[in-house]
């Protein structure tokens, strides 16, 4: 039986690796831009949730994304992670490995698994479908659990964790992924104040190691203190740059003024129509 598994593993890993190699893009003059938005519009059922975002995220930067409910923060994360396709524009990504900690995970908390099973899912990108999690991996996993304050929780059942402990376990999984680009969507939900301090220190450590981090947050004080750059969203980007220049009273007031609800009566985006007109001539308007 071990033999069968061995051969299957050998065959599949080789085939898959070859396949991946043929797909991988040559790293042409690795610029220091990690993610580039080109007039990116994301949304649902034709309604824009992120509207005409352009700009770039530098490699090794730490950026907070702030904004009211419904301002497009999570949508943007899904767009970067490739889970949501753009309505128009594009999002060019140049990272090697992505770790994404979603706000509303689809995690089944009643699933009969232990903390260690959940966290070791983070080895997926490294070990693939068939590779085994090695002894070294397990040691590293233990260190990640330590770092989020969950040492000794390896064998605990998932349904016995509190909300904050679950969030920390997911944080540990994000660490295990060992990604160069990390998306965190409100990672401090249900986490107590002392642990937030620890987790922020961890995030800063990742940035010091050269990783790029984008983090959705609501706590402006926390952002001002720890996040050098900020993107303020209100469906459209309101401001993007060094945090002190973004989180000004004016900008925040402008961000608050946006209309959260969808409006079926709202007009079609003029800018997009203009682009189409340039592309196809004025015909579209007459149809």
């Amino acid at each position, binding site marked *: 039986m071990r033999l*069968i*598994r061995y051969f*299957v593993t050998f065959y*599949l890993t080789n085939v898959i690796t070859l396949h991946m190699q043929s797909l991988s893009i040559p790293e042409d003059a690795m610029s220091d831009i990690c993610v580039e938005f080109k007039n990116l519009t994301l949304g649902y059922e034709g309604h824009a949730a992120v509207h005409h975002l352009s700009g770039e995220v530098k490699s090794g930067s730490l950026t907070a994304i702030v904004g009211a409910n419904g301002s497009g923060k999570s949508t943007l994360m899904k767009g970067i*992670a*490739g*889970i949501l396709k753009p309505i128009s524009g594009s999002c060019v990504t140049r990272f090697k490995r*992505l770790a*994404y900690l*979603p706000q509303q*995970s*689809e*995690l*089944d908390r009643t*699933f*009969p*698994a*232990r903390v260690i*099973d*959940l966290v070791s*899912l983070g080895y*997926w*990108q490294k070990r693939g*479908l*068939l590779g085994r999690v090695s002894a070294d991996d397990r040691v590293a996993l233990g260190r990640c659990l330590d770092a989020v304050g969950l040492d000794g929780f390896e064998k605990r*059942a998932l349904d016995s964790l509190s909300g904050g402990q679950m969030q920390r376990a997911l944080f540990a*999984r994000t660490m295990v*992924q060992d990604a160069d680009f990390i998306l965190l969507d409100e990672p401090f939900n249900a986490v107590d104040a002392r642990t937030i301090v620890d987790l922020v220190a961890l995030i800063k450590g990742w940035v010091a190691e050269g990783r790029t981090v984008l983090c959705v947050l609501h706590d402006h004080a926390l952002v001002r203190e720890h996040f050098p750059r900020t993107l303020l969203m209100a469906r459209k980007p309101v401001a993007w740059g060094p945090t002190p220049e973004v989180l000004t009273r004016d900008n925040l007031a402008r961000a608050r003024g946006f209309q959260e609800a969808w409006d079926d009566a709202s007009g079609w985006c003029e800018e997009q129509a203009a682009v189409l007109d340039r592309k196809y001539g004025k015909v579209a308007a007459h149809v």
Partner: protein
Amino acid sequence: MFDMLLSPFLQYGFMQRALFGSLVLSVSCAPVGVFLMLRRMSLTGDAMAHAILPGAALGFVFFGLDIIPMTIGGLLVGLLVALGSGVVARFTIQKEDASMAAFYLISLAVGVLLVSWRGSSVDLMHVLFGSVLALNDAALALIVSIALVTFVVLLIFWRALVAECLDPLFLRSVSRIGAPVHFLFLILVVLNLVGGFQALGTLLSVGLMMLPAAASRFWSNEVRAMCLIAISIAVVSSIGGLLLSYHAAMPSGPAIILTAGVIYAFSALAGRRGMLASALTSGRHKTA
């Protein structure tokens, strides 16, 4: 006692074939059932079993009571329903339970129509309830191949299946394997139901899949262990059911499934995570 338990299997060839067939089925069906349950798709097995009927009926209409055409028909229609409902669920707003219900009901209606059109009610009974005591070589070969396919697929895709049940959004963020694995799993369900239907009938083959799986949940909190427990329960049910059928002159399919049902009821009551365990917890507790 020894005589009662062993002599039926030693004396009669058809009992040996029945035992072999149902044991192989047990090993193959039970883990599939465990994953169905963990994905909250316990009733999907039942829906799929109904869906298989028109395929089997088509085979029957054109070739009579012959295992091969009936199996191929059931397999094709089962896969069609699985893929159809899966595609609707993936690409529209509708959830898979609703699309599956729609597809299997259409399929079932066609099946009943076909059987009533050409067959008698005796034939319908055979398709619906099968007969483990009449397993021929072709049927046994089919069951063994299905078990092998199931075993290999589960071995290879184990981690993907667990990940897809535990945290589908995470799996989507690191890999595109989620959707293919889901379809592959539905194919396994159909294969195992088709494998079971000659022995237990289209309706009861779900029983050997779901009852041991559901019972195993009361004993363990670990997927691997649950699969092993479910297999053991299915094996015990197969042996017990065949003996019951032999000694009490009962039809074999219901006897096997009823035995599994009794084990399920016992587990729900007395299992480590069953009713008694939660009712009898004393005030005793640890400080941390």
